């Protein structure tokens, strides 16, 4: 049977997130409880988490989380990292044996910074240098897969139900101001850890519920800009689109939302002239990056979180607030299980992004 990356596998899912606007650090057990209540939305073939603000002691270094199939792959990858990065710290990621999580690869963590001379030689900015290195490893090195590469954040994922994955990675030992989680229901059996969500590139992580019908149109367009969609998953292509539009093109998150979940032309025609021109421009200029089909996505990034539904709202997504806390999940139950006294709760409309950022960043 072909695994992820050799064949495109559609998947349905559960997603959840917690965000503290004041930057209060929350331990990982909360997000595990939230995603656990939606057990039935996953089928045990993938679960994962992203936590932000979890590595304050290394906050200026890129934290690489890597799966290795073999020690040869590990040696090869470490050799590459050695030549291109200053490795500040490396270790196995601590795990706890869980009967439901089996066949784990070697899982390592590296805190790195680009070697200044190599970086200067490459004539790239630092982020692009890191991205290309990550893409190189994932694309070229059989058996090595960097699944997390941002600063002061990390992705933890595996094959299994998300609550077991949380237990396996001992998430209660990490504290962060923002957490996202994903439980997967793929319509095939990949049996590969890299295929679980979140999908990450630098500090951006995406968890996604849906199956996008525009996949190949999006993929073939974004691959023109140096991305390689090796996993053939929606999450991967959405991550690259977001990276391209936001990091490379310089669009704001809400402008990016106007591209990927663009308003209908009939809606645009009712706007005032300036807004009409702006929306028409975004839709036309980046037409091939419109995403159709059902999706609800949570985009985690340094200092913030974005939630977005497809423009027809073909997937459920609920937002709740209490004090400085924001909760977003596929189902209301996943919010109430960790905050029974949630103050405000609503369903964002299709195509309308919900963007939350840390208070101190907004000032």
């Amino acid at each position, binding site marked *: 049977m072909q695994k992820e990356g050799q064949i495109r596998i*559609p998947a349905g899912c559960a997603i959840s997130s917690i965000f503290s606007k004041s930057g209060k650090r929350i331990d990982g057990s909360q997000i595990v409880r939230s995603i656990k209540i939606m057990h039935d939305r996953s089928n045990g073939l993938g679960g994962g988490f992203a936590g932000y603000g979890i590595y304050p002691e290394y906050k200026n270094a890129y934290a690489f989380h890597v799966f290795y199939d073999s020690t040869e792959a590990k040696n090869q990858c470490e050799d590459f990292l050695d030549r291109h990065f200053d490795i500040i710290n490396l270790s196995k990621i601590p795990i706890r044996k869980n009967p439901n999580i089996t066949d784990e690869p070697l899982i390592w963590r590296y805190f790195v910074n680009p070697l200044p001379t190599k970086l200067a030689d490459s004539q790239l900015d630092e982020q692009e240098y890191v991205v290309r290195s990550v893409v190189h490893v994932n694309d070229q090195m059989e058996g090595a897969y960097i699944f997390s590469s941002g600063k002061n954040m990390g992705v933890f994922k595996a094959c299994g139900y998300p609550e077991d994955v949380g237990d396996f990675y001992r998430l209660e030992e990490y504290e962060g101001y923002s957490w996202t989680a994903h439980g997967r229901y793929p319509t095939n059996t990949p049996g590969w850890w890299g295929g679980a969500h979140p999908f990450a590139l630098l500090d951006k992580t995406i968890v996604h519920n849906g199956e996008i019908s525009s*996949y190949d149109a*999006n993929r073939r367009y974004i691959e*023109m800009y140096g991305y390689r969609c090796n996993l053939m998953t929606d999450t991967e292509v959405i991550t690259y689109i977001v990276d391209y539009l936001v990091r490379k093109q310089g669009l704001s998150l809400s402008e990016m939302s106007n591209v990927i979940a663009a308003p209908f032309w009939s809606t645009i025609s009712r706007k005032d002239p300036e807004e009409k021109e702006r929306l028409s421009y975004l839709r036309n200029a980046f037409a091939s990056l419109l995403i159709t*089909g059902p999706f609800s996505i949570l985009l985690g990034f340094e200092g913030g979180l974005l939630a977005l539904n497809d423009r027809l709202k073909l997937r459920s997504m609920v937002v709740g607030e209490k004090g400085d806390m924001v909760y977003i999940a596929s189902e209301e139950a996943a919010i109430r299980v960790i905050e029974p006294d949630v103050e405000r709760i609503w369903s964002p409309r299709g195509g309308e992004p919900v963007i939350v950022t840390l208070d101190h960043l907004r000032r």
Partner: protein
Amino acid sequence: MAVDFFYPEYEIVRDPNRCIACRVCERQCSNKVHSYDEDTGKMVCDDSKCVNCHRCVALCPTRALKIVPSGDTFKTNSNWTANYMKEIYRQANSGGVLLSSMGNPEAFPVYWDKMLINASQVTNPSIDPLREPMETRTFLGKKPTGIERDMNGRLVPNLEPQLELSLPILFGGMSYGAISYNAHECLARAAEAVGTFYNTGEGGLHKDFYKYGKNTIVQVASGRFGVHKDYLNAGAAIEIKIGQGAKPGIGGHLPGLKIVGDISQTRMIPMGSDAISPAPHHDIYSIEDLHQLVYSLKEATDYKKPVIVKIAAVHNVAAIASGVARSGADIIAIDGFRGGTGAAPTRIRDNVGIPIELALAAVDQRLRDEGIRGNISIICGGSIRNSTDVIKAIALGADAVYIATAALLALGCHLCRSCHTGNCNWGIATQKPELVKRLNTDVGTERLINLLHAWEHEITEIMGGMGINSIEALRGNRLMLRGIGLTDRELAILGIKHAGE
């Protein structure tokens, strides 16, 4: 000579019990096939003059007529087919080049018919176009390579000139001269009503039709017939015609017979003189020359109109398209080898060029490999026969399609492939006033609008089935296609998987 005698290919069968001798067949046949025998009070016909255009069949009020293959045959030979034999007799008699009209009729593979379309089941909902918006609006033109912002951080709309279409279908180039005034009027009015474009072809633009300018693409071909500054500025876009799918590598030829009255004026050439376009543009001998012509035209129109470069699908089409994409052109039109023509040498029409499906797939992939797909939009043409051909073309990577033969069929053409005789009984490919008036422009316009609306309905329904509610999400979405009965090589070129994979 006896050797040049051909038994008629088609036989007109008249049911004597039905025929009421109303003589409509006689009055309507410009080839003078039918006549009335005063002595017997019966209709008679000369099958040898029949081109099988079906005008008489369609108009006979008692359904007394039908046209069938005559069945006369030479001794059967799979190598020396009857056609090849007759062509030899014909050429031995005339010493001339064989001429044909309309697209390549030979039995080459039609890849459209070997591709199947996807639909959603369970994991992804299909969308009902009756209940949800379904968008087919299409823009053609360059996409910006980067955004720009003004002092206040607002996005600057830095798009180059674009064509906006309500659906991804345009009428392909057919010159005034090759087709009639009335046919042109129908195309122009239908394009305006639907919100798309028609294309003048290489014969200039009749002064009556300047009013449809915002829905007109004006063509500049190697003969430069009817090209002047007002003409260039009259249209919404300018198309440089390098080649045509039906006859790659050669120019057009409109016989002097058709250069009458307004046509001579519109083309700016003397009455009765043959309009012969040179094979190449004599100011384009290489790609850098194309660049200069593109910018000359942009200069002449103040950089307000997109420039289209139309090429025939030939072996090296992907590399040529890459050159065109870097020439400053905004849109490339690729015409496949089954594209129609008012007249082309038979041998060329039937043997030169490649299928549009393969050409389109190769061009789209090449432009993406080079990262320049956003530099240029792709229009593909050359026998788009129905709405699923349109969908398949867009899924392979086209931004829009040209339809021309299909448009003529909507106007009444029955593909008798005799355009070059100028005796079109349906009033389309003729300049004879008594024939031209057979195409009532109100009716023709309506029929073209109907055709586009019908296709639009079908396109949106099938898009909905795929869970796609906007045409741009279908563009280049090759996962929505599967091949059936294709070799690995064909699948690789088309960039699609086989059904079942």
